């Protein structure tokens, strides 16, 4: 029997490391193994590599090298940003010990989790406002303005959503924060989780006007385990990892030189190849959506279809549940993801899809397809052949799209 074709359409979950990235990082496992904090030759060789990577990552987002703090990934970056700011503010004697954070209802689970933890901690010291994202999956700047309170210290809104890819109006929120500062407001910072956006659309911290921005290496064709937080010069935050002087006192712990070198190389490649990659992904994505619309009925596209990342498509398949579809596709070699409750291990379906106002059935039937630079037209042809068959098979099993004939039978 022929081997099943494997098609990976889950690039928003993670990407394969680019061979050029692997090649660049490998020497730092063996001959260039030094600790970047050591004074000797080996240490300085590692230090130089870390500094170079820092410049590359900074260049990807229009920042200065010394504004980049390397961490273990997007989740840690979000923790350091949000908890770091909130704890720094609590320590500020000029403020009352109560604070307010504005975020969106469609944040990544890490930001959601951090905000929930803040709410529970310290006897109501922190209040969180979660902005609606409406049917299009995009927050509105006027809602941010309305939510602002005298004790608001942080606005944390993602740059692009991880499930539906919608791009949030960060520039406008940044302008609002700037306006507030001109009016004399102190203690208000803007954080954005750019993990999904970086490398896929242009990201520039000056244009966005943000003070903190989270990045993850493995979404840009580098290995897992490395991320970065942009911390604008002059912004004070409380480190979450203490016990060392690394990363300008913002993140203690020996630098993961290999991962950092890989991240730097991947950031450089992403900057150089972004236009070409985005065009490639978007062409495949658009072909996919057009082809699927012709072949499968009763599907609903989730999120604004214009203001979204070029590589991602989120679709609800009516009458069926997402994980059954995911497993059926997996058996055919096609890898996708779902926000269905089963996959996430909770009883509630995706809060992101729910936030768009979708009912339970549509929320449970939502599937994310995310394309990448190595996907081909042949991959897509295969998916367009397999997916309609699998959907049809599962729908044949569903009681939701059939009129029950039981009532009169039972009563007869």
């Amino acid at each position, binding site marked *: 029997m022929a081997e099943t074709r494997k098609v990976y359409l889950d690039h928003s979950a993670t990407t394969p490391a680019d061979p050029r990235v692997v090649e660049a990082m490998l020497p730092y496992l063996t001959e260039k193994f030094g600790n970047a904090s050591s004074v000797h030759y080996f240490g300085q060789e590692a230090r130089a590599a870390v500094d170079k990577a820092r410049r590359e990552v900074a260049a990807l987002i229009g920042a200065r090298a010394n504004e980049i703090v390397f961490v273990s990934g997007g989740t840690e970056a979000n923790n350091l940003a949000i908890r770091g700011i909130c704890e720094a503010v609590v320590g500020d004697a000029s403020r009352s010990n109560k604070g307010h954070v504005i975020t969106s209802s469609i944040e990544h689970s890490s930001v959601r989790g951090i905000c929930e933890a803040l709410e529970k901690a310290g006897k109501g010291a922190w209040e969180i406002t979660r902005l609606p994202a409406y049917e299009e999956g995009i927050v509105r700047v006027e809602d941010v303005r309305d939510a602002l309170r005298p004790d608001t210290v942080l606005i944390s809104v993602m740059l692009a959503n991880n499930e539906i890819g919608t791009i949030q109006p960060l520039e406008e929120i940044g302008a609002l924060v700037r306006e507030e500062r001109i009016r004399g407001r102190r203690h208000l910072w803007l954080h954005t989780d750019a993990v999904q956006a970086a490398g896929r659309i242009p990201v520039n911290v000056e244009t966005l006007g943000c003070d903190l921005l989270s990045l993850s290496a493995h979404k840009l064709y580098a290995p897992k385990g490395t991320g970065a937080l942009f911390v604008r010069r002059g912004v004070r935050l409380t480190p979450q990892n203490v016990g060392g002087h690394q990363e300008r006192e913002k993140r203690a712990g020996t630098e993961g030189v290999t991962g950092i070198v890989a991240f730097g190389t991947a950031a450089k490649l992403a900057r150089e190849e972004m236009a070409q990659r985005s065009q490639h992904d978007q062409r495949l994505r658009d072909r996919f959506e057009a082809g699927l619309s012709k072949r499968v009925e009763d599907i609903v596209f989730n999120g604004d279809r214009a203001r979204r990342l070029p590589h991602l498509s989120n679709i609800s398949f009516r*009458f*069926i*549940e997402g*994980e*059954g579809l995911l*497993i*059926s596709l997996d*058996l055919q070699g096609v890898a996708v993801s779902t926000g*269905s*409750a*089963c996959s996430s*291990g909770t*009883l509630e379906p995706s809060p992101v899809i729910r936030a768009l106002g979708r009912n*339970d*059935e549509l929320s*449970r039937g939502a599937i994310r397809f995310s394309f990448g630079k190595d996907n081909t037209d042949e991959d897509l042809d295969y998916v367009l052949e397999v997916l309609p068959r699998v959907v049809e098979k599962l729908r*044949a*099993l*569903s*009681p*939701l799209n*059939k009129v*029950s*004939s*039981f009532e009169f*039978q*039972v009563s007869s």
Partner: protein
Amino acid sequence: MPYSLTFKDHIANPRNAGDLPDANASGEETNPVCGDRMRLSLRVREGRIEAAGFLAYGCPPTLVCGSILTELIVGKTVEEALRLTRKDLLDAVGGLPSRKQHAAALAIETLKAALASGGGAPTFPT
């Protein structure tokens, strides 16, 4: 959670899928917590289940429990089928993590509802 090959096979090739056209007993149940739903139709002749058909909406364990349930009950007498427990079904599935065991409970409840619909087991209209 990693699913077994048997499990995946039932997802890819569900047994006895669909409503039986000549059923004389049927039941439908919904799990109020997660919204999973199952429908079972049976053809019962002389106290024995001759054929079964199921429809299910919900997470994969629910689909698989429906499929395996139909395999278990076809050929059984109504009395034997009534004695089937959640645990019997879980054993046949090869076990499920505790938070997925409601799928087996839903299947057994649907079976009981279907068997009761025939005017009370073991007499069925033909």
